[in-house]
């Protein structure tokens, strides 16, 4: 991993990987969404509303995946002081928050016709809303640290502590009675018919590639910011002499 400690090496890889991930992700995700919206069968009980599954579930997975990325990068920052760790964590926060928001909004729209309510304060919905607020806190904190100076270990500790919410979200429907149904996909088993499962998995793959592309693009932008700032500082110093 320390082979990428030099940002130049990382940048030369990211330069061609970013557009590749973005384009492949867009094609696969929107292909799967179009298939899910137009071709896939309707559910025996929910009818047409089941089609929101192909957006809701990948968004939920990536909302949690975003914070897992922040947690792993925070660990790398705290223990190994990897120079790219802070940047990777900051880059993953915004797309993670966007996917969490998409999950909450689509879930609410789905809940109205199926459950008969837009929102309930059950374990799953509440813990997912907490995740969105954790993202807001992380984005504000890491932004303030990078703007106003301060140890990048502060947002890293926050990222690691916030990770406690991820297993809670995952287990919330098992530990507590909730309106949200228990997991459909568990280790090696699926209660989702293959007719729904395959487009769902392909949509999840597409959105994951898109997520990876956005993270890389944001890492490049953040690195360019740091570089530009360093150059300005050098220039100011040279002029001062």
């Amino acid at each position, binding site marked *: 991993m320390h082979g990428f400690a030099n940002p130049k090496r990382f940048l030369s890889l990211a330069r061609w990987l970013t557009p590749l991930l973005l384009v492949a992700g867009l094609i696969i995700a929107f292909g799967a969404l179009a298939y899910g919206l137009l071709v896939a*069968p*309707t*559910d*025996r*009980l*929910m*009818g047409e509303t*089941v089609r929101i*599954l192909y957006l809701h579930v990948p968004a939920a997975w990536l909302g949690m995946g975003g914070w897992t990325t922040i947690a792993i990068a925070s*660990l790398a920052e*705290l*223990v*190994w002081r990897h120079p790219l760790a802070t940047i990777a964590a900051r880059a993953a926060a915004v797309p993670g928050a966007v996917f969490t928001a998409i999950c909450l909004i689509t879930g609410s729209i789905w809940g109205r*016709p*199926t*459950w*008969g*309510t837009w929102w*309930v*304060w*059950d*374990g799953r919905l509440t813990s997912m809303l907490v995740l969105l607020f954790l993202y807001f806190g992380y984005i504000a904190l890491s932004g303030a640290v990078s703007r106003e100076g301060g140890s990048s270990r502060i947002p890293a500790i926050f990222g*690691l*502590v916030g990770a*406690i919410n991820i*297993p*809670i979200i995952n*287990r919330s429907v098992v*530990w*507590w*009675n*909730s*309106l949200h*149904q*228990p*997991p*459909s996909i568990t280790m*090696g*088993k*699926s*209660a*989702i*018919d*293959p*007719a*729904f499962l395959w487009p769902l998995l392909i949509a999840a793959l597409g959105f994951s590639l898109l997520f990876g592309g956005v993270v890389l693009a944001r890492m490049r932008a953040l690195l360019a910011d740091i570089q530009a700032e360093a150059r300005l500082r050098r220039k100011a110093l040279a002029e001062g002499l």
Partner: protein
Amino acid sequence: MTAANKNKRFKAKHQRLVLVVVALIALIGAGLLATWALRNQASYFYVPSEMLEAPPAPDRAVRLGGMVQTGSIKTDDDGVTIHFLVGDGKETVPVAFSGIVPALFVEGSGVVAEGHLRRDGTFQADNLLAKHDENYMPRELENMTETEVKQTVAETYQ
């Protein structure tokens, strides 16, 4: 870099790793304790056997969740009041409700009723929420023969 210097750096890295791991274990332990303590309070609803074991006061707003027993939905003469039984496999509680039911409210499916337990043991619901289970199945499967369904379901569950 001298060997001693290298050794020192190596140690600092390990010390940080151990510190972070210890902190994480403490954090996860605290989180587990908190969620374990919340296991009853954080539940969204009571199931019938819990409600019969410790009946809530008639003026207390509670939620009752379970399966709508097959063949139990009866509509009153007024056309809007329904009676049905909610069960959890062990016990059942009779429920009364007047109003519009959600689309997924059917016999043999999950339901969460908001309301209070009347003194006569009937749960008076002010609102019904349909609970969807974890199974997703296309409508086409309903028209299949028994063996076809069994085969498809076996494939789904592997």
